């Protein structure tokens, strides 16, 4: 197994298989899985984003979903104002980055658990504000978007189209993360996470690097939010509750903090599991989905706390 994982062709083969999947899904009566795949992909993007904040920089963020919301709503409002869809996506990323940078400048000086509460608070502030500012966001009634179907030549089904677009986004994000991880910036983050004081004493401008990690996360969230909005053609505040933030944190920690393949697998397992159960089990068992989910969280944490696919550094840290 390890050989497969470490083989340099594995990610490309996985990508190819994933890209082919929606086209064979029709044959095996699994169109629902294409939709599930798209949702998993969105959470992979979110997980990769949070990985910067939590996995690399070690900052405990409980309100990440707020930026997913900001990305989604920016896209919706922009498209409704006439901005063409691709630009709306870019705008979503920029606006999200701006808000995140602002938040970071304000709160990053706070200590670990205080940061957690404040990020949680901001998450709620964002959701409630979106819910209350009817004039801008139409409040709980939500906003509808015009469809954007650039890949309609590949398939008439928007689920397939967006699955592929999200897959592309995930692939690009994974590559970008890997590049950053391997750079000076990435090594600085690891140093800060391992021992902040030592890092500072070595000359690393800790505050700047923390802010950088914190802010970059938002780009992924904004992109994911924009794609989500365009796919569903509808955004409401209810899609962005606190529980979703916790889900993303679980994906990163359970997948393996700071590990890109770990985050991807974490999203696959945690986000894929409930809909998979729903698809094939009888109605009576469906209510057990989340119970099993909770059980998985506890059991994986107890027996494999370093995560499903931890980075080698973390594996060494937690098992020796």
């Amino acid at each position, binding site marked *: 197994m390890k050989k497969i994982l470490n083989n340099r062709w594995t990610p490309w083969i996985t990508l190819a298989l994933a890209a082919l999947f929606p086209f064979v899904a029709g044959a095996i009566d699994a169109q629902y899985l294409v939709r599930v795949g798209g949702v998993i992909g969105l959470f992979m993007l979110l997980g990769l984003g949070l990985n910067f904040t939590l996995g690399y920089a070690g900052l405990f963020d409980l309100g990440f979903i707020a930026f997913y919301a900001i990305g989604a709503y920016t896209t919706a409002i922009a498209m409704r104002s006439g901005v063409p869809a691709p630009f709306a996506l870019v705008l979503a990323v920029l606006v999200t980055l701006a808000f995140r940078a602002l938040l970071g400048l304000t709160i990053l000086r706070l200590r670990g*658990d205080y940061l957690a*509460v404040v990020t949680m*608070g901001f998450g709620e*502030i964002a959701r409630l504000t979106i819910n209350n500012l009817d004039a801008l966001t139409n409040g709980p009634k939500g906003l509808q978007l015009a469809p954007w179907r650039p890949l309609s030549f590949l398939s008439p089904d928007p689920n397939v189209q967006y699955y592929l677009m999200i897959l592309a986004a995930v692939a690009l994000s994974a590559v970008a993360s890997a590049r950053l991880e391997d750079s000076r910036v990435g090594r600085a983050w690891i140093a800060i996470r391992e021992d902040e004081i030592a890092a500072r004493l070595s000359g690393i401008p800790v505050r700047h690097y923390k802010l950088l990690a914190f802010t970059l996360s938002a780009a992924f969230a904004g992109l994911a939010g924009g794609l989500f909005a365009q796919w569903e053609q509808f955004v409401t505040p209810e899609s962005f509750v606190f529980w979703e933030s916790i889900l993303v944190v679980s994906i990163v920690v359970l997948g393996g903090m700071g590990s890109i393949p770990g985050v991807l697998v974490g999203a696959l397992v945690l986000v894929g599991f409930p809909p998979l159960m729903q698809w094939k089990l009888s109605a009576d068992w469906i209510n057990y989905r989340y119970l099993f989910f*909770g059980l998985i969280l*506890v059991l994986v944490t*107890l027996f494999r706390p370093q995560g499903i696919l931890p980075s080698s550094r973390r594996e060494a840290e937690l098992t020796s």
Partner: protein
Amino acid sequence: MLVQQLVNGLTLGAIYSLIALGYTLVYGILTMINFAHSEVLMLGAFMALGLAALLPAVFGTGLVGLAGMFILSMAGAGLINVIIERFAYRPLRHISRLAPLISAIGVSIILQNGVFIWVSTQSLPFPEPVAIDQVQVFGATISTLQIIILATALLLMAVLHFFVEHTKLGKAMRACSDDIQTAGLMGINPDYIIALTFFVGGALGGAAGVLYGMNYGSIKYNLGFLPGAKAFTAAVLGGIGNIRGAVLGGFILGFLEVLASGYIPNGAQWRDVIAFTVLIIVLLVRPSGLLGEKIAEKV
């Protein structure tokens, strides 16, 4: 109206304070946020409901029945918290800071969904063992229920204070809160004290759950989530790990919510935004909370 709102704020604040104490006690000793605390409080409420349903003659009527219901639910909630600590947190304590947190989240999900599946998916009416009247005080209509809630909460806080400040076990808890390793060297068994802390914290949470059920008349599987999150905010506002801070934070939050709903036009929907914004502002000025101490980091 002011008197009425003050009473509203006091009642709400009392409940938040009790819950916040549970968070702060556990944090003080383990620097861990017990995410499952909100479910412990929910279970306390359900245990009370169960007691009243099983033995309505004993627990369903009268002041004695009410007290009995309280004590048993508190004990039950405390015990549940101890069991959770033993099996879901203790094995992870030495591994990393985040692992117990994720485990706590998992436990929280299991408990909530467990009640959802095996007890009821809907709101269940909560028993009313004592007849509730309204009294008029200074132009405000105060229900005897609110008086009971406030009195019970204050009583419990006083008992906690006495226990922590004036008993040997309390001293041991304080010692572990300060420095668990040194406390261990002094002959205190840290695992035992940790379990005790979880018991006390859980019991307070359970009491809050019962009061919550009494105050609103009905309980549901997810009743713990919102008050838990708010009480956690209150604990941080006051300075997490600090007992007085938790009480202060709880009451401040209760009053803030009442002020927002009661005095700001169309304020009810901005209530939580105001609460969280105040939190952020307070933490910017006092990064360790209102009564929290600045902890020097050892290099």
